[in-house]
C-alpha cells in the first residue's frame, strides 16, 4: 500500500527548478530516506507535502488526500519535525504539547494521557515544566518528535532530524525512529545528508539538482557498485590505470591523487592487483565496503560535501542558540 504518491511534481523559484518533475511512492510503514546535498530540493519537497508550499505543477497525495485541495485532511494525518526548531521558547514543554493537542483538536482526557506518555517516551517528563528556551538542542529535537506524534499521524516527516546534534543524541533519536516504525507502524519520511544514517532506512531516494537520480533499498543501491571499493595510490596513477584495464575487466577511475576501483572479494583481489602493478611503486592501499556516499559519488561524480555541510550545520546551530 502506498501512503504517499508523488506524480510529476515540479516547483520553480525564479524560473529555476528547485524540484524538477519528480515521481515516486512511499509505502505504508517504511522508513523512507530522502538523501541529497543541501539545496538539492529535499526541504522544498517536504514543504509541498506538508502543504506549506504550492507546487508549480504536478500532484501529490498523502493517505489519499491531495496536498493542494485537501489541506486540512493532509495536515491532520501528518506530523512534522522541521529542520530548525519550531517550539515556543516562552512556554514549557508540556504547554507546547498542549497547544499542539488543542489545535489538532484532540479530546482533553486523551490529550493529557498522550502528553504524559510521550514526554516519558522521550525522557523529558521530569523537565516538563521547564521553559523550552532553556532546553539543549537535543532536548528540543526530542520534544519536537514527541509533539509530531501527539495527534497519532500516519506519516511522520523528519527534516534533517539529527543535524547539529552530538553523536550520542543522534543515536538516541535513531532509536526512537526505528522503534516508532517497528512498534507503531508509523511511516517515516526523513531527509538527511548523513550517509551513515541513510543506511537505516527501508528505502532511499537520492535527489540531486531537483531530480531523483536513484531509488532503492540501501543494499540494492550498494549492490550496483560491484564488490568492495579499493583505493590505491601509486607513483604513476595513469600507468596503473592502463595496466589494470589490460589485466582485469575493471575500469578504475582517477580522482585527485588516488585510483578508485570496485572488485568482488577485495581482500583476495589486492594480491593479484599488486602482482599486476609490480613495476610501479604503490604508496597506499585501502579496501572497504562501499557506502551510500560512494553510491552518490558514482551517480553524480561528486561527494556530498560533509565539510561544508558541517559548517552550515554549525552556523545554523549557533543562530539557533540566540
Amino acid at each position, binding site marked *: 500500500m502506498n501512503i504517499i504518491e508523488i506524480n510529476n511534481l515540479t516547483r520553480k523559484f525564479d524560473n529555476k527548478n528547485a524540484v524538477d518533475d519528480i515521481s515516486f511512492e512511499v509505502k505504508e510503514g517504511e522508513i523512507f530516506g530522502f538523501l541529497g546535498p543541501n539545496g538539492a530540493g529535499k526541504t522544498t519537497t517536504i514543504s509541498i507535502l506538508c502543504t*506549506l508550499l504550492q507546487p508549480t505543477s504536478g500532484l501529490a497525495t498523502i493517505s489519499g488526500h491531495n496536498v493542494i485541495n485537501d*489541506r486540512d485532511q493532509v495536515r491532520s494525518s501528518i506530523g512534522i519535525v522541521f529542520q530548525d526548531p519550531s517550539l515556543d521558547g*516562552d512556554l514549557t514543554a508540556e504547554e507546547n504539547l498542549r*497547544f499542539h493537542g488543542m489545535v489538532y483538536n484532540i479530546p482533553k482526557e486523551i490529550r493529557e494521557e498522550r502528553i504524559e506518555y510521550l514526554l516519558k517516551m522521550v525522557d523529558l517528563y521530569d523537565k516538563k515544566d521547564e521553559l523550552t528556551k532553556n532546553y539543549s538542542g537535543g532536548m528540543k529535537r526530542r520534544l519536537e518528535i514527541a509533539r509530531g506524534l501527539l495527534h497519532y499521524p500516519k506519516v511522520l516527516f523528519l527534516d534533517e532530524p539529527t543535524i547539529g546534534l552530538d553523536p550520542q543524541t543522534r543515536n538516541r533519536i535513531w532509536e526512537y525512529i526505528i522503534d516508532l516504525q517497528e512498534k507503531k507502524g508509523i511511516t517515516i519520511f526523513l531527509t538527511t545528508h548523513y550517509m551513515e544514517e541513510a543506511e537505516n532506512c527501508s528505502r532511499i531516494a537520492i535527489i540531486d539538482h531537483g531530480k531523483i537520480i536513484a531509488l532503492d533499498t540501501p543494499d540494492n543501491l550498494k549492490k550496483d557498485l560491484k564488490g568492495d571499493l579499493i583505493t590505491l595510490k601509486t607513483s604513476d596513477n595513469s600507468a596503473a590505470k592502463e595496466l589494470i584495464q589490460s589485466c582485469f575487466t575493471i575500469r578504475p577511475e582517477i580522482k585527485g591523487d588516488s585510483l578508485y576501483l570496485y572488485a568482488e572479494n577485495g581482500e583476495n583481489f589486492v594480491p593479484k592487483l599488486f602482482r599486476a602493478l609490480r613495476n610501479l611503486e604503490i604508496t597506499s592501499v585501502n579496501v572497504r565496503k562501499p557506502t551510500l556516499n560512494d553510491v552518490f559519488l558514482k551517480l553524480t561524480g561528486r561527494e556530498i560535501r560533509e565539510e561544508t555541510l558541517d559548517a552550515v550545520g554549525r552556523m545554523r546551530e549557533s543562530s539557533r542558540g540566540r
Partner: protein
Amino acid sequence: MLKAVYTIWLREIKKFIRDRSRLVSSVAQPLIWLLLIGTGFGATFGNVGDLKYIQFMFPGILVMTLLFSSMFSAISIIWDRQFGFLKEMLVAPISRTSIAIGKSIGGASKSTLQALIILVFSPLLGIELGISRILIVIPLMFFISFTISGIGIIIAARMESFEGFNLIINFIIMPMFLLSGAIFPISNLPSWLSAIVNINPLSYGVDIMRWAITGVTERGPIYNLIILGLVCIITTTISVYLFSKGK
C-alpha cells in the same frame, strides 16, 4: 474555528502573564509620559476647554497604551516566524483566518488589561469615573486595540525580519500617536496638519475615548464609532487576507 482562535488567544495571554518585566515596562512608559509631558505641557498650556491639560491628555495616554501594546503584539508574528513557531501553527489543521483573529483578540485583551491598569490612576488626576462610564470604556478599549492589531498584522504579514522594526516605530507608530490629537487639541490646526489628523484612524479612537472619559468630544461619539467600525472591518479583512496568502 472557535477552539483554534481560543488556543491562539490562550498562548498570547499565558505568555503575557508570565512576562512580568514587560508588563511593568509597558505600563511604566505611559505613566512617565503622563507625569512628565502632562505636568510640563500643563504648566504652559493651562487648561484645554474645561479640562486641565493632564485630564485632556489622559484619554490620549490610554489610547497610546493600546496603540503600542497592540502593535507590538501583532508584530510578534515576526518573532513567531523567526523562531519557527509560526510554522507549527501553519501546518496545523486550522485556518489561517483563525490564527490572525486569535492573534488580534489576544493582542486586544492584553492591551485592554494594560490600559485598565493606567485607568486606575484616573482619580489622582481628578477624573471621576462611574461604573456606567467604565462599562463603556472597557469595550471601547478592546475595540480600538482590535482595530490597531489588524493594522499591525498587515505590517507583519510580509515582514521576514526585524530590520524594518525601527522604521515601523519611527514612521508608523510615533506619527500615528503624535498626530491623533492625543497630546494637543485638533481644533485650531493648520489645514494641512488637520488633513493628516483626519486620515489617521487613531484620532477617532482618541476622540471617542476622550468622550467616554471626560465627556468632551470634537466629532461626536456616533461619527467616531462609524469611522472606527469601517476601519476595523477593512483592516481585519486585509489582515486576514494577507495572512492567508502569505507563506
